[in-house]
């Protein structure tokens, strides 16, 4: 099996590829784009054990770590699978793992791993007020909020400590307004908290800024894996099309102007892959830099490949009926999620230029 994966990783990759190819060929993407997510297919994947792939075995997951999750995210990116996987099984799970107390981890990670719970997360430290009993404020754009049953929020208590709380979608005072997203394959919603009462059991634990950062870096890594898959799919679609499309009496794939651009797309998609894998397999003390570079490089690679794919398809790539625009829109959504490509590279720069370290060692 190719580095850095083991037999377990290869096995889930094979199952994922088969399932997702069938989903895609069966019009899954087009259907999901109408609703911002295919919850039927999502339930099937939870039956396959995908939801808990990275969650520790003691909480009912498969314990395959970030690398295992990156396999699924890469394959989902390739098919542009449209389900609340990233929001629930990656982001929400990571913040619970990083901040919640042990009994709450057991409860919530178990629920997410089993696929019974669909969760989402928003960082409410600057916009959601928590007085110890009630939540108030507006989170203007929460990924997959229209599908989520449980909204996890980080808030600052009046004394300044950070804590993680959870609100149920049907709680009195909580409302979710679905947003019309540019990327129709991923839902988002505005979540308004108007004095939402929290029971003590909904306050899950306290944590530091460092814990929040570590959860965010894990999300970067998985998002990078999705980008790597998407970048490769844009290349594959383009090569396939260029081999079939005849102009000037030749397949356009025989023109160097087309070939060289495809070669550059391959350089980017392989680079995105390596970046995503290296961040998913990094040691805890290396993951900081690795996650920043993965987010920066891979989301940029996906976007550029999606743009090149449209260009090389010519007019057809510009139409709604042809699926490329979904990739282009997802690529932009991923690029701007958590800030720009430049932000990720600036985060990396501050590690390697301003941080203790690397450059002094040489």
């Amino acid at each position, binding site marked *: 099996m190719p580095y850095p994966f083991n037999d377990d990783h290869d096995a889930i990759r094979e199952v994922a590829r088969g399932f997702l190819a069938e989903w895609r060929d069966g019009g899954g993407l087009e259907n999901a784009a109408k609703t911002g997510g295919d919850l039927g297919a999502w339930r099937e994947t939870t039956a396959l054990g995908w939801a808990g792939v990275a969650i520790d075995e003691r909480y009912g997951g498969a314990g395959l770590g970030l690398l295992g999750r990156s396999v699924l995210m890469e394959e989902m990116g390739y098919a542009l699978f449209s389900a609340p996987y990233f929001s629930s099984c990656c982001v929400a799970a990571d913040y619970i793992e990083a901040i919640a107390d042990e009994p709450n981890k057991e409860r919530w990670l178990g629920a997410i791993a089993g696929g019974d719970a669909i969760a989402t997360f928003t960082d409410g430290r600057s916009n959601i007020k928590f007085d110890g009993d009630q939540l108030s404020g507006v989170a203007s754009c929460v990924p997959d909020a229209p599908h989520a049953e449980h909204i996890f929020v980080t808030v600052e208590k009046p004394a300044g400590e950070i804590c993680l709380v959870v609100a149920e979608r049907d709680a009195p005072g909580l409302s979710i307004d679905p947003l019309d997203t540019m990327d129709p394959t991923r839902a988002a919603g505005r979540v308004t908290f108007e004095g939402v009462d929290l029971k003590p059991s909904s306050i899950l634990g306290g944590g530091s800024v460092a814990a929040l950062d570590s959860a965010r870096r894990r999300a970067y890594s998985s998002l990078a894996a999705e980008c790597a898959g998407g970048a490769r799919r844009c290349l594959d679609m383009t090569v396939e099309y260029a081999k079939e499309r005849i102009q000037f009496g030749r397949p356009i794939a025989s023109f160097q102007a087309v070939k060289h651009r495809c070669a550059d797309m391959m350089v980017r998609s392989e680079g995105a892959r390596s970046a995503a894998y290296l961040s998913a397999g990094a040691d805890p003390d290396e993951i900081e830099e690795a996650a920043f*570079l993965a987010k*920066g490089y891979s989301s940029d690679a996906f976007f550029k490949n999606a743009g090149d794919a449209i260009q090389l398809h010519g007019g057809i790539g510009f139409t709604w009926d042809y699926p490329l625009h979904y990739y282009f829109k997802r690529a932009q959504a991923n690029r701007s999620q958590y800030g720009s490509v430049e932000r990720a590279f600036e985060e*990396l720069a501050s590690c390697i230029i301003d941080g203790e370290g690397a450059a002094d060692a040489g």
Partner: protein
Amino acid sequence: MLDDPKAVALRRDIGGWMKENLTGRFEEIKWRGGPGDEDAFPELRKDWERHMGEAGWIGIAWPEEHGGRGAGLLEQVAFNEEYARHGGPGRSGHIGETLVAPTLIAFGSPEQQRQFLPGIKAGEIFWCQGYSEPNAGSDLANVKTKARLTEDGAEWILNGQKIWTSNATESDWCFVLARSEEGSVGRNGLVYLLVPLDQSGVEIRPIIQITGTSEFNETFFDNARTDASNIVGAVGDGWKVAMATLGFERGASTLGQQLLFRNELDEIIRRARANGAASDPLIRQRIAKAYAGLEIMRFHAMRMLSDHDDGHLSNEAYVSKLFWASWHRDLGELAMDVVGPIAETKENGEFDRLQRLFLFSRADTIYGGTNQIQRNIIAERALGMPKEPRGNAPS
């Protein structure tokens, strides 16, 4: 993956040896003689090769029956990485060790192996490569250098010109791809000959490069001679043998090369901190991207090395030349922008390391398959896109 026990042991051995031996008079060549600097200290670097040869460090990858240790790929990686980590000088003997020797082991006669391998292993005989010609660069099969056997069949006589022969002035022998069949074209009718350079029929003219230095040369054959026995493979097999030679470079030195790159990037970061460029947001972006590219290359190499035995090139292997060459060229540009206007001036009449990086990296995207040829290879072989129709204009 790199913690293979044999590799760990070898890493320890070479590391200890380098620490003890790259000292005294060899101190001067630490970190020297790499790409763009290959004409630095030629004699001292040859002494260093002999020194390595005496210690048994040359040819570790060769099979034991040919005097090597049969070191596997991971051991070779460990060796190269550790060698580079200690500032080991650019290897004057690498063409002989990594290209000629494996070719002779695969295709040479027992007599050729006995004649040539010991000199390479001892670090005493140096080789260069005679492939490219003025009209056979990217289109290598267009070689025109003529080889014909004398009537008594005792010697080959060569006429023609090779170009970009690296370090020819410092070499004793050259392996030459030449056309032995009158009127043949392309890959047919070629021979692979071993030619001694110290003879009146060979003239070597250094090419002064963009760097002001000359590791590249033009090599002229004017009735140059070599013994009839100095053909590798049969008459007509030249193309096959020449391609096999190129295939022996399987990436073992990649991680060593990356350590040099890392060292260059570290120096750029140090300079940027020192002169304030590190607070320029655009420079910071470029430094971060350079760092990302280097980490990606390292990971590509690990992926590549892990599946090296399944017989076909992997995706990351196809893209690696284009990736590193473009990356390194960008690094040279970044270096100049970091250093600023002072980079326009020489100290002590010589270019410094970053100036050499800037200038020499323009060659990285040309030699060993230009970026354009690399893109063709990726498109045609990795992506299965059709070849462009070939022209038939005489050249």
